[in-house]
């Protein structure tokens, strides 16, 4: 079976101030139709740059996709001309960004903004585009959709604006929706509304989703599989239940321990990951997590550990994945 999306050895670098930023260092993954994937990582992990590269949104200067393939329905997106890519973007693949305050044009009514892709991509006439725009707004749960088309972005709240962004992303029935931290700027109760909405729409429309987040808790209940990124590398990839129950990389384990849980009377000290995120200006010659890893051995400092299978559909880039898993999951002493 061919995958909807197949990313192979994607490499993206930025050049600024005479330095080379190794933002994405050869990541590979696949996504099937209707499947949902979360890419989790901290700032600078390459999670956003990774998907921006897929969408052809990296500008040179300063950034450049320098290697790899992005096969979408069998076509390599990296080889498309800017015009062809523009047709894919907003057509078959669409994207929702983090900040709903700045991603809408403040001087155009939301109706105009919603109708634009309908007319450009689907060639609808004005009346048909307006009808479809109203339909989309009610699909994402905005009351009085038809009347609100003439309103401007400032007349909507943050949560409503993010709903409008989602409506816009759905205009052309995309087969892949990329959501880059779509709820980070929103309050938790509004975040819960948006998460429910996306889950519901995904079921109804069978859209594949890549959900990018720094929040391991947020994505737990909403995706099929999870990729954890660190320093431009995928360091672990697993079906969602496996990742949370049997993490196989010390960074993932550390992240899971570092978040206090709302449902536990947690009186112990939080397990923090000591040290700082890596300097992306240097190409890695060793495991990028080694300087912060409590389980580091000599080998970690000598070569970059490859992503290898540690279970069904479960990969980890740690030499000691198997033994660490035992310690983490069964409390065994080393």
């Amino acid at each position: 079976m061919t995958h909807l999306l197949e990313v192979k050895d994607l490499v993206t670098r930025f050049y600024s101030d005479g330095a080379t930023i190794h933002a994405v260092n050869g990541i590979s993954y696949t996504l099937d139709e209707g499947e949902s994937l979360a890419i989790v990582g901290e700032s600078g992990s390459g999670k956003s740059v990774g998907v921006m590269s897929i969408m052809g949104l990296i500008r040179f200067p300063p950034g450049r996709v320098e290697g790899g393939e992005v096969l979408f329905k069998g076509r390599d997106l990296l080889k498309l001309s800017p015009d062809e890519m523009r047709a894919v973007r907003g057509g078959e693949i669409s994207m929702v960004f983090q900040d709903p305050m700045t991603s809408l044009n403040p001087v155009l009514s939301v109706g105009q903004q919603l109708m634009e892709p309908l007319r450009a991509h689907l060639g609808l006439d004005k009346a048909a585009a307006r009808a479809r725009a109203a339909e989309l707004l009610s699909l994402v749960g905005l009351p009085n959709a038809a009347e609100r088309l003439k309103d401007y972005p400032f007349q909507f709240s943050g949560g409503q604006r993010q709903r409008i962004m989602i409506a816009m992303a759905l205009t052309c029935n995309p087969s892949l929706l990329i959501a880059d931290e779509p709820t980070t700027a929103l309050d938790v109760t509004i975040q819960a509304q948006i998460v429910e909405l996306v889950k519901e729409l995904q079921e109804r429309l069978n859209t594949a989703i890549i959900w990018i987040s720094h929040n391991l808790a947020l994505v737990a209940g909403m995706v099929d599989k999870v990729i954890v990124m660190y320093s431009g590398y995928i360091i672990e990839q697993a079906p969602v239940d496996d990742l949370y129950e049997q993490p196989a990389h010390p960074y993932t384990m550390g992240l899971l321990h570092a978040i206090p849980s709302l449902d536990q009377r947690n009186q112990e000290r939080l397990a923090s990951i000591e040290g700082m995120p890596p300097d992306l200006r240097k190409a890695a010659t060793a495991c990028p997590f080694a300087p912060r890893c409590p389980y580091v051995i000599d080998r970690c400092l000598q070569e970059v550990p490859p992503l290898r299978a540690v279970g069904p559909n479960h990969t980890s880039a740690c030499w000691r994945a198997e033994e660490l898993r035992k310690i983490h999951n069964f409390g065994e002493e080393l």
Partner: protein
Amino acid sequence: MSIANGAASPSTTLVEVRNLKVHFPIRRGLLRRQVGAVRAVDDVSFDVYQGETLGLVGESGCGKSTTGLAMLKLQAATAGSVLFRGQEVTTLPEGQMRQLRRHMMMVFQDPYSSLNPRMTVGSIIGEPLSVHQIGEPSQRPARVKELLRMVGLNPAFINRYPHEFSGGQRQRVGLARALATSPAFIVADEPISALDVSIQAQVVNLMGDLKAELGLTYLMISHDLSMVRYISDRVAVMYLGKIVELGSRDAVFDHPMHPYTRALMSAVPVANPKLERQRKRIILEGDVPSPARPPAGCRFNPRCVFAKDICRQQEPELRVLEISDGVEHRVACHLAEELAV
């Protein structure tokens, strides 16, 4: 060891907030006549006990930061009183306030914009010492180095500038600055929300250590409920300028009584896929109303599924419903008893 250490006994009250109001005027027209007011904080009362961490939670615009600022007189109060060790803060003349300020300090959210980029960390941390004329000028560098050590930074960094530090390190500098005058009370406004997850735990642990070491009292303002549960002894929940629930950490988190607190808790995701898929969320309809035109009666009534006539007519008082973990559990809901069943 956590920041919460069970010190929530009402034995000594450090700060007493009574009927605090902060209203921002809305002016319109040529004469800038006042046509209304944003009631950011609207009649809020609570105590902060000596040695505790009080978590103040709520969504953006609920008035939690304004409350914190007004308690330190960094924002003028419209009405009400704030007593710090029995002394009225809101009406204190600026000269006397300056002397009091060394005992009550603030840690800000954004470690990028709250440090002057043109000052070395040494002068940033040393500034409160010279402002308050603490110690001999010749001894101040030694004190700054001690503070750097205290927050886990290398004392050799004393001549570096903020841009040379990461976000987590800058927040440590902000903490060192707040601690320079050996304050008793610290208001921390979202101290970790600008930091990465792996760094958040470092800063939270540090704040816990400092509290134990120096006997500090914290007001921890945050929208991150999991973190507030972890660090607080008591928790106050704000909605639209009002406190709707106040009680011991476990009382508020394990059996929240206000419908808003319940919805807020249920909206927080937990890092457990199986649990998450089964959880039944209370999804609130709509958005928070404008604090310039708060609804009549209970402010939560337009979004509350339980709302009855009384909720639309009469404003509920923050009343004591039970004593839990030795402290009062207060709730501002007419229907709290009914809903508890």
